[in-house]
């Protein structure tokens, strides 16, 4: 019986453990110093906002792990000795493995700003960050969030739920416009403002000022404005957590380098999830992808490989989702911030300014390449099929009602969308909704 050891009990680590257990009776151990049991990182905001208790974020009850013979070790791995297949833990414990899977996730970026280590300055990634945020936000009036991405907007929503005033510094022209096309970025920016957030676009952080007691007092922006605040949220992206691998012989760059079997340069060491940097190209995908779904998929894939059926990590068409306050966002396929030269686009926005759809297709072949949807739920299965099947834009528009995933009695917008399309593209063949 082989000893499989997994470092990290996030979605990637837990998925691989569960899938190995489905296929083999090997010994499985998961080590984490974050929490004793797996919880859903994506739900941290809901705990702070009082939507859920921390216990509600655990996808499996505590007895689950013992019942499935998955050993949990609450400890921190300080170093990996790949010569002797041994892990050195903070507690002094040594753990040996036959196969090691690194699923260590990532950590919030800090870019060397003066004052970035003051009390009251923090990112939001881990359970510890959540506890810190509870502590840092106690009794405060004003906070500044730096970085216009998904964690930034979550943090803003969290703080607003406690009636803390939020100023939001965003480097780009509009919120998240390094990812979203300008139309959507603008829609979300406006929506963010309607929640009484002071959104400062094209503004960066210069420094964080000390109140004399080691706590944050204010910040200074790139426009030389000083803003009083008692909490600074740094949400300018995350980087793979790989510090402890320095002398392990495992090759890293920004992340842990892996081949298409998610194997590192050391044969019996694999890496999955946020901490991974792929050494091979996948079209339309970045080499480091720090989202929930990729962590889960990598876990599924590497479990197959370890259990004797080598499987390549070949994620299907890209998909993702988020929620900006009350506006849900889903995306399928590739919708870039900038339209590529070979592409055409069609953008529809509802008069409420809370719903929108953005379609992208290849101009020459008319093949549909991606969609962003706001405020309208779409069926993943349909878009996965259409993207894999290289359906045309008109096919997608005509079959749009099939992909609608909104609850019963919801207002249907497909006729309006297709009409707007025909108006904008009068020379394309007319559409009839299926």
């Amino acid at each position, binding site marked *: 019986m082989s000893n499989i050891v997994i470092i990290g009990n996030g979605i990637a680590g837990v998925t691989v453990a569960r899938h190995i257990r489905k296929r083999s009776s090997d010994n499985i151990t998961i080590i984490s110093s974050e929490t004793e049991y797996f919880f859903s990182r*994506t739900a941290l905001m809901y705990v702070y906002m*009082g939507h859920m208790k921390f216990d*509600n*974020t655990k*996808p499996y009850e505590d007895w689950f792990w013992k019942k499935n013979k998955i050993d949990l070790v609450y400890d921190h791995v300080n170093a990996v000795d790949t010569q002797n297949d041994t892990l050195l833990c903070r507690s002094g414990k040594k753990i040996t493995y036959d196969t090691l899977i690194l699923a260590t996730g990532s950590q919030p970026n800090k870019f060397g700003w003066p004052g970035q280590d003051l009390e009251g300055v923090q990112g939001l990634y881990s359970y510890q960050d959540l506890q810190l945020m509870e502590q840092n936000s106690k009794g405060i009036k004003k906070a500044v969030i730096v970085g216009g991405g998904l964690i930034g907007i979550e943090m803003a929503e969290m703080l607003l739920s406690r009636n803390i005033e939020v100023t939001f510094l965003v480097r780009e022209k509009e919120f998240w416009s390094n990812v979203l096309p300008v139309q959507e970025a603008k829609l979300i920016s406006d929506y963010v403002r309607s929640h009484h957030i002071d959104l400062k676009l094209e503004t960066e952080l210069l420094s964080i000022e000390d109140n004399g007691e080691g706590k944050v007092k204010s910040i200074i922006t790139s426009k030389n404005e000083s803003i009083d605040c008692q909490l600074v949220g740094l949400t300018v992206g995350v980087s793979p957590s790989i510090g402890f691998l320095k002398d392990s012989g495992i090759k890293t760059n920004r992340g842990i380098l892996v081949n298409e079997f998610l194997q590192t340069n050391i044969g019996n060491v694999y890496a999955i999830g946020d901490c991974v940097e792929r050494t091979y190209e996948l079209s339309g995908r970045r080499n480091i992808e720090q989202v929930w779904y990729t962590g889960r*998929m990598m876990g599924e*894939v590497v479990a197959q490989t370890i259990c004797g059926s080598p499987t390549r990590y070949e994620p299907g068409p890209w998909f993702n989702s988020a929620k900006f306050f*009350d506006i849900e966002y889903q995306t399928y396929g590739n919708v870039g911030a900038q339209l590529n030269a070979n592409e055409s686009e069609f953008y529809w926005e509802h008069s409420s300014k809370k719903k929108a759809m953005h379609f992208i297709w290849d101009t020459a072949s008319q093949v549909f390449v991606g969609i962003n949807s706001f405020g309208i739920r779409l069926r993943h*299965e349909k878009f996965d099929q259409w993207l894999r099947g290289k359906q045309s834009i008109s096919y997608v528009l005509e079959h749009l009602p099939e992909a609608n995933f909104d609850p019963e*009695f919801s207002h249907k917008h497909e006729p309006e969308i297709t009409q707007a399309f025909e108006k904008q593209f009068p020379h394309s063949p007319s559409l009839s909704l299926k």
Partner: protein
Amino acid sequence: MQLIRIIGLNLFLAALFLFLSLLFFSDYTLTKEIFQSKVKQEHQQRLLPAFENIIDKTYPNTFVFANEIKNSIEEHNSAARNQQQWDQVIYDDYVGTLTKASTQGIVVDYTLLLFLLIFGGGTLGALLFILPKIGIEVPGIKNNNIFHDALNNRGWIGILLGTLLISFYILLYFYDAYVTNWIILVEPLKKLINPNGDSSQWFLYGFLYTFAVIVMGIRMLIKYRHSNYQMVRTASVMFFQLAIAFLLPEILVRINQPYFDFKNMWPLDYDFFDAWHINMLTQSDGSVGLFMFVWGITLFVVGVPVFVYFFGKRWYCSWVCGCGGLAETAGDSFRQLSDKSLKAWKVERWLIHAVLIFAVVMTGAVLYNFITGTNSIFGIDTYTYLRKPYGFFVGAIFSGVVGTGFYPLMGNRVWCRFGCPLAAYLGFVQRFKSRFRITTNGGQCISCGNCSTYCEMGIDVRWYAQRGQNIVRSSCVGCGVCSSVCPRGVLNLEVKEEEDRFGKPILIGNNGISLQK
């Protein structure tokens, strides 16, 4: 805006306080005239000696007075029993009627004014508290601070409210004489609907129930104003409670027809087949009663399977039913308190099916008695060993005291989940022969757990969603809140062809990966 809400809350609390304190307002004098008019001729002579000390004496509160009456009757009865004069024992319940007739003071003198102050003021207060939310919050899921709140998370307010509700049910079911002042309070409304009727504890209960469904229904409509599904569903339970459960039966009585709730059905309506009920319906004047009898049977024989097949059990549980109506309106604030553990699910399955079996056995026995004209089956007295315990343990304790009293402690569907025999029956059909399911959307689940947290039936929705499997569970009442609170658009209530309803666990993602069960 916040100020208006605070004023509203205080107004509501003042009305509630006035309502509660009303129980202590009256004093009680049983005059000879009242005694003679309320006690049957043949009982008067027998009871008079025991009542000698009570008549014309004024009592300061209902508790002492009602106990005094009860003891006096009991005194007479035990004396009769001791002398083995069985025919002298009095079984009529005079405590409630005499207490009501002997009540004096402001509750009697200013009934209408108090009614308007309490329910008018209470409604106004509640609306002032609820309505400004429209201006303060943009539409969308607003569950902020629910678990920080002493009302919603079993804090002191929750425990206090639970205690109040439990006490209310115990008084209502077992000590109705103590709540006589409340019964008198709703008398003007009773007379308005039905001038010849007298208010009773059941009318009081029906009114308070409907009041709660309507006022809290308005809160629900506003809270979920972004979701048409939730709005239509809430309007539906409000309508059925007000029109079909509360008003229509009263109107029927007014026009000399049997009291009948057209949306209630066996086995929830567990005494539907009791001899007195069948006789009441079938022997009433005209054919309306007979129609009611046939309607009642058709509803559970044909209505349940057909509607559950096409829509799922939600057509009843979260669109029509009164218990569901209260749970979905007044109980909405407590849905997060349901237990999601596997253990709770096991308890649920044992308990609810045991109640169903109990109900079926009891009804079988009752029907056997009705047809054969007997009182027992296999030598067992049906009333003592079946109907009475069912009425007490299931009808009163489980569905009332626990079912609603424990809202703030165990969530708003304790009865529906663990006890309701009709829910068990609807659930069988939903599980085995229905087009209804909750669909999981590909691979979009992030396991956040909002769906499970807010499932009032304690279904661990996430367990299915995160493995890409449809949710088909007999207990699901189709309230749709899992879908509403999902931040990623993963869940949807759907009716489609039966084939592949359960769905294979599939998460859309890597090429060539499919999950084994």
